[in-house]
């Protein structure tokens, strides 16, 4: 049974409980007249892969052991403007051509003659992939070392700051790939795409990697319609708050009993508990008629084992995969309903980590035959992990087509979220009309960042592509736009502005 949020029921359900008056006040939904526009939402979806394969030009592939020369697989074709061609990676967006725009031929600057951190140009990439690319891509701020750290606030958090206090959740930061998967190694920073004000290590925002917990965190505050259920809900909510209160009551005494370094650690911990308590106290406002608790996703899929980070022979079935497909779909469902219910207005979904070592085979197998070509389905059975596929890890399946297939999988989650928002009415239009959805892969396909000389490389911040969907702020999608080597952050700024951002810069990039 879908549980719709109904203010009358909320009030009735809470009435029998021992609820203090301040709570009643915060339960009231913000007053919004029918003439008032719905809030603008902003989400960024990230794919930890590049746009092609090493050393394979855009029309070259090797599929099932056969070399193939064929266009249409690189994400950005050369047809610009409206009615542009849907390439292989974009196929999940079929039927939504007028709902998104593609910005291609974007580039992050770097110093081709120096690998010195001090020589990196503004908004540029330190010449060491992968770490060097993350900060300029997501925060428009230059990187000066190979570390995975954004040196400025990221776009989603700019929007989160803009809407601070307006929604129960300041932002929704989630990640579908729960484990790094390479034997003996750890994420070491590859798992962050959201950073708060100022950037840097202390500003990074840990993503929730458990769909089960994310679901609970967003929707356990909804009051059921049924009186009996509502009474149970009320009992459960009071229990949760009492438990958190018990912990929080110890704060002052505990914090004052330790040294300053430990005080900082514990204060941060207690701050987060207090924030959770506040979220439990707040009742989700009514955003639209479409707001309903989505189905419980149940227990998370099991987390896959490690492999050696190699190609088709070493990344065996069963390793390196935790059903990221299901996880990404659940997170898309949660972002959708969080937007519909106005639980948050800023979200980031890291589908796969930077330099993702997720096993590509289950993904590729799930794609089936490649629509629109006469090629055999064997193309899909690419072996190796996502990262190694770009580096030709599978001797029989390399180059543009395998990369395009995996990019298509990432974009399928973007398309799924887009479609759900598009089909959810809001005001005179849809929720998508009041949203900006960004999709960005980790890398482009071009000049190798490290050596500044090899062409057609995955470790490249050239020929980058960003997709932008939605119509918030009057954005008018439906085009393929040649970025002419503009910084990808310029696209993020446009998206942020459409979502209500008044400035014209992100980090060191300005429009």
């Amino acid at each position, binding site marked *: 049974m879908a549980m719709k949020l109904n203010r009358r029921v909320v009030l009735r359900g809470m009435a029998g409980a021992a609820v203090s008056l301040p709570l009643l006040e915060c339960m009231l939904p913000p007053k919004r007249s029918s003439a008032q526009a719905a809030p603008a939402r902003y989400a960024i979806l990230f794919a930890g892969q590049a746009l092609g394969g090493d050393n394979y030009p855009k029309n070259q592939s090797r599929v099932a052991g056969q070399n193939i020369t064929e266009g249409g697989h690189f994400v950005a074709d050369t047809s610009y403007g409206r009615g542009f061609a849907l390439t292989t990676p974009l196929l999940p967006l079929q039927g939504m051509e007028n709902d998104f725009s593609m910005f291609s031929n974007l580039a992050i600057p770097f110093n081709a003659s120096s690998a010195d951190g001090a020589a990196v140009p503004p908004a540029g990439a330190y010449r060491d992939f992968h770490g060097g690319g993350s900060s300029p891509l997501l925060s428009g701020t230059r990187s000066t070392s190979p570390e995975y750290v954004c040196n400025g606030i990221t776009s989603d958090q700019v929007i989160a700051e803009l809407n601070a206090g307006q929604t129960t959740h300041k932002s929704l930061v989630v990640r579908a790939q729960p484990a790094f998967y390479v*034997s003996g190694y750890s994420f*070491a920073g590859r798992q962050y795409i959201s950073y708060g004000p100022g950037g840097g290590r202390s500003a990074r925002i840990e993503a929730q990697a458990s769909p089960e917990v994310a679901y609970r965190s967003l929707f356990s505050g909804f009051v059921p319609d049924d009186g009996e259920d509502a009474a149970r809900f009320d009992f459960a909510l009071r229990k*949760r708050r009492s*438990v958190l209160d018990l912990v929080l009551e110890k704060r002052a005494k505990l914090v004052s009993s330790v040294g300053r370094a430990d005080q900082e650690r514990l204060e941060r911990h207690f701050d*987060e508990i207090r924030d*959770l308590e506040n979220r439990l106290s707040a009742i989700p406002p009514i955003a639209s008629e479409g707001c309903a608790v989505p189905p419980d996703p149940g227990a998370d899929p099991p987390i896959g084992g490690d492999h050696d980070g190699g190609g088709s022979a070493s990344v065996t079935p069963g390793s390196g995969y935790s059903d990221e497909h299901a996880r990404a779909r659940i997170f898309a469902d949660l972002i959708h309903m969080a937007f519909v219910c106005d639980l948050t207005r800023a979200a980031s979904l890291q589908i796969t980590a930077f330099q993702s070592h997720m096993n590509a085979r289950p993904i590729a197998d799930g794609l089936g035959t490649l629509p629109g070509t006469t090629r055999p389905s064997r193309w899909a059975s690419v072996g190796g992990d996502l990262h190694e596929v770009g580096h030709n890890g599978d001797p029989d399946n390399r180059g543009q087509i395998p990369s395009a297939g995996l990019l298509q999988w990432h974009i399928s989650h973007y398309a799924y979220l887009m479609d759900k928002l598009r089909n959810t009415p809001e005001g005179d239009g849809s929720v998508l009309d009041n949203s900006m959805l960004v999709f960005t892969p980790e890398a482009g396909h071009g000049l190798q960042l490290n050596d500044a000389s090899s062409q057609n490389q995955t470790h490249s911040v050239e020929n980058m592509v960003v997709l932008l969907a939605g119509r918030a702020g009057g954005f008018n999608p439906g085009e393929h736009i040649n970025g002419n080597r503009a910084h990808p952050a310029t696209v993020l700024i446009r998206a942020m502005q459409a979502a209500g951002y008044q400035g014209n810069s992100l980090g060191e990039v300005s429009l």
Partner: protein
Amino acid sequence: MSSRLAGTAVLALLLACSTGQIGPDRESAGGPDGPPAVDPLIAIQSGARRLSQAELDNTLRDLVGEDTAPAARLLNEDEFRPFDNDYTIQQASAALITSLEALAEEVAARAVADGARRAALVPCTPSSAADEACFRQFLESYLPRAFRRPVTGEDIDAYVPLLAYASEDNPAVDNDFYTAVELAVAATIQDPELLYRIERGTPGDTPGLVELDEYEIANRMSYLLWASMPDDQLFAAAGAGSLQSPQGRRAEALRMLDDPKARTQLHRFHAMWLGYRSIPHSPDLVAAFNRETSALIDRVILDEPGSYLRLFTMDETFVDDSLADHYGLPHPADGEGWVSYEGTGRAGILGHGSLLAAFSKFEDTSPTQRGILVRTRLMCEEVPRPPPTVDTDQPPQGAMDALCKYERYAEHRDQSSSCAACHSLVDPIGFGLENYDIAGRYREHDDGLPECVIDGSGEIVNVGSFAGPAELSQLLVDNGYADSCAVRQFLAFALGRPTTSYEAALVEEIIEAFRAGQHDFKAFVVDFIASERFARRVEERL
């Protein structure tokens, strides 16, 4: 044939030398970075440490009988540097707190749903849902275990209002006495006093110096030796005040080392240290490797105390028939047991499949990675990170289309290239292990390439030449790397962070003590716990 070889014609551009390192694995350390307030020889700097996923799962197992490893499932993956307990990079987050709340509710619900587990938690039979006396009895027995310290009346009083949920007259819910028990358990699991090891102690004579109390000492001991909370006996020893004395700590440490939990912890320490904690082989093979390596660790530390260096030099190994076949060793008597390494070139842990599988790359052994493993984990040296202009994601290609692996690494050896300076530190070590494949089997030539005969000779530059695990181990032992580095790794594990340059004298002193004790690791660990400084700490400087 390696997939890397196929299609090399397309790789018209040779990728310059690469160390094959996956990338920056080390973030610059947070935490203590200035000179500590007190000489590390007297006391060591430390901070509040949040339990790792494994430690939290073990603690919940021992506290409430939880056996589903919920932290491994619901909390974000720990960073291994190489240990899972580096507190200097821990940072509380909304994701952590929401996951902990879900985890706590789940664990608490299971703890009271099961009759036996419930009975273990509650030492009385409640006469009614609102039986305050019984609830207090439960709190008196449970809270000290949850917080791992004695509790005050005030501590207990704070939980008593939860009884209102037990006795609330509410037709919609099935509440009873155990509702309050469940809530108390859920609250403690979210409490920083359970989640962190917070050490307050009492100020010592020197500013910044803290003398730990008995329970804080007990916690240090149990998380070091067991990766879990103290048991009743350790709590009792703390309560009796005996852990304040070196003799008292010694006695308890010896008892604790007899517990199976200590074995598991020693296995975990070695697996994280030597990088084989999650090797990519079939579950059966991994299990066989683990039995082999665990048997060696148990033997040289616990079962036949003596020189720990036998970990590296042992001339026999523990296998079953199938692992013996895997290695080409004779079958053990009785299906499982120790068989001689004689005539194999193997010795000790470096001859094990577990270690030989660690740090492989590109579907094959990586001489560079193995060299890095030996340099960083067994010699405790820093290997310079590859220059940024090198793409470490690509295996070395060497001369155009070179068939044999040794030739493909030629550029690493070319003194005229910029690669040789660093690669000469690591590659020759790895090439000395090349006769042993990714699963630890002996091989004469590159996989599938009989024409590529493996020479198998290796060198630790400026230390000596070797061929195979036995000779490499001997070099590491004879030149004082194996023992000193084992101590450094143990200290990083015990302290929850790498030692700093300010602690050099401390490290040297402890290494000398290990040597003076004839490398008896068990005695060394017990001495470490018995030492004065184990019962102290120094506040971190901000």
